[in-house]
């Protein structure tokens, strides 16, 4: 069959909502785009453990400590499913990790911001996991089967994280004067970076058209961002706090909230590696990997010895 026919067949499947599976024929660019996106997503889960893990030792109550430990552990689990999903496309976890460490692969820029107070843990759960959910709910219907299925599991946990984050802030918002200030300050610092999580504007986004055609993405960056703003603008009323945007206003005609302009300079600076924590995050991951090398080697050597002994016994 000529390649055009394969491509037609492939596009027909996508148009008919049939999932693409690992052994199916797929255009090389589709494979590459999925590897890039899924591995980037996996890296984000793993790097995302760092800013929150930062507060485990200092969590303000035993209950909060337990919840935070469980949350960060969930994120590690998400990383694991996602690496497995990406591996079905023919790249090993180790290769992906090397690409992260060399700077070749990216992860979500949001994790390059520091967690300065306990309220940041609430703000991350509410805003960052909240923004992630917008994207991930869409991805439960993405065209690549293993990615879509991983997302179904992950989404359940993410919405739990978002509620827990909101609840942290709710308690602070009803607490002492110092706690209220802490709460508002965290919202002020995390709001704009959370909006940036949806990526460049549609008019500037390079990969969007093809991804939409292949149904890797099903909503544009701007649509998702708008949905997020609409959701948070309502939820924040319960907290009695403010979003740091003078232009935020309900638009009855559009039936959406209008909002101000994102600082795109900052966005691109962080993408380029100049965010407040880019350097520390990557160093922490590299260090964990390097310090773990002898452990991985020992585990492999022991597994090999065992296998050899088994063989000797059998012989």
């Amino acid at each position: 069959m000529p390649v055009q026919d394969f491509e037609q067949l492939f596009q027909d499947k996508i148009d008919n909502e049939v999932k693409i599976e690992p052994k199916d024929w797929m255009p090389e660019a589709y494979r590459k785009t999925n590897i890039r996106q899924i591995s980037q997503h996996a890296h984000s889960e793993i790097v995302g453990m760092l800013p929150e893990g930062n507060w485990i030792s200092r969590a303000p109550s035993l209950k909060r400590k337990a919840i935070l430990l469980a949350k960060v552990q969930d994120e590690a689990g998400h990383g694991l499913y996602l690496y497995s999903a990406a591996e079905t496309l023919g790249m090993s976890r180790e290769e992906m990790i090397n690409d992260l460490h060399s700077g070749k692969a990216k992860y979500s820029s949001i994790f390059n911001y520091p967690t300065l107070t306990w309220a940041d843990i609430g703000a991350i759960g509410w805003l960052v996991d909240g923004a992630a959910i917008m994207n991930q709910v869409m991805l439960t219907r993405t065209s690549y089967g293993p990615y879509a299925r991983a997302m179904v599991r992950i989404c359940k946990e993410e919405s739990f994280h978002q509620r827990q984050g909101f609840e942290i802030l709710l308690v602070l918002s009803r607490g002492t004067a110092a706690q209220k200030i802490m709460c508002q300050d965290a919202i002020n610092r995390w709001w704009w970076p959370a909006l940036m999580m949806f990526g460049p504007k549609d008019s500037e986004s390079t990969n969007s058209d093809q991804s939409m055609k292949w149904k890797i993405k099903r909503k544009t960056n701007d649509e998702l961002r708008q949905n997020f703003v609409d959701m948070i603008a309502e939820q924040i009323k319960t907290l009695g706090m403010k979003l740091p945007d003078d232009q935020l206003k309900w638009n009855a005609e559009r039936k959406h909230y209008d909002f101000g302009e994102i600082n795109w300079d900052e966005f691109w600076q962080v993408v380029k590696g100049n965010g407040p924590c880019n350097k520390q995050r990557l160093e922490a991951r590299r260090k964990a990997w390097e310090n773990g090398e002898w452990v991985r080697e020992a585990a492999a050597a022991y597994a090999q010895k065992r296998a050899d002994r088994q063989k000797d016994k059998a012989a």
Partner: protein
Amino acid sequence: MTNYLIDYTLHLADNALILGQRNAEWCGHGPVLEQDIAITNISLDLVGQARNFYQYAAELIHQSVDKSTHPATEDSLAYLRTEREFKNCLLVEQPNTDWAQTILRQFFFSNYQFLLYQELQKNNDTQLAAIAEKSLKEVTYHLRWSSEWVIRLGDGTAESHQRMLQAIDELWRYTGEIFTAADYEEEAGVDPSLFQPQWLNKVKEVFDEATLPVPEKTFMQSGGKTGTHTEHLGFILTELQYIQRAYPDSQW
């Protein structure tokens, strides 16, 4: 009257909390993702056990002192006692240093906790017995997991073997204290010296498979159970208690 029981319950709680706190330092920094998850999971189990014991200790304190004083809670007990009041064994406060020391610390402790909880299940105090029974499944897993890692590292590469020897050299001296009963343990009717031989048998069995030597009798450090700790504990508590100390009388 029930003072010894309060102290004993706090001792059990402190052991679990401090080791949970130590293990949590690995979260996000583990040698491989699966083990990052495993050690975090153990940490979570231990924090859970600590909470059960602290809640019970708070209840006991309520029964024993006059109600007008500040009410004890799981959090006041974990966050507002000082380093001289903590009753955990020295072993659990020792630093992570590397994966070998973390594994060995866990193995020594889980081996002990497994035997202890089996005993405690039969204790006259039904609350302690219930917590022990509930936790035993977790501890069984911790013991299996850490035993497997001791073997893997001991019988892995030359480097991992060497690191295990180093870990034994660091930690063996903290294993004696575990089996020397403090007053409150005796009064609670749990004498850990009774199951020291079983503990040692397990060590021998696992070390043997790991091709590691069991140390000869050496001098044993002690003091943790009665509040005389190594210098590490103060720093652990500084971090652990920071928010509650900085923002007193707040809800979180």
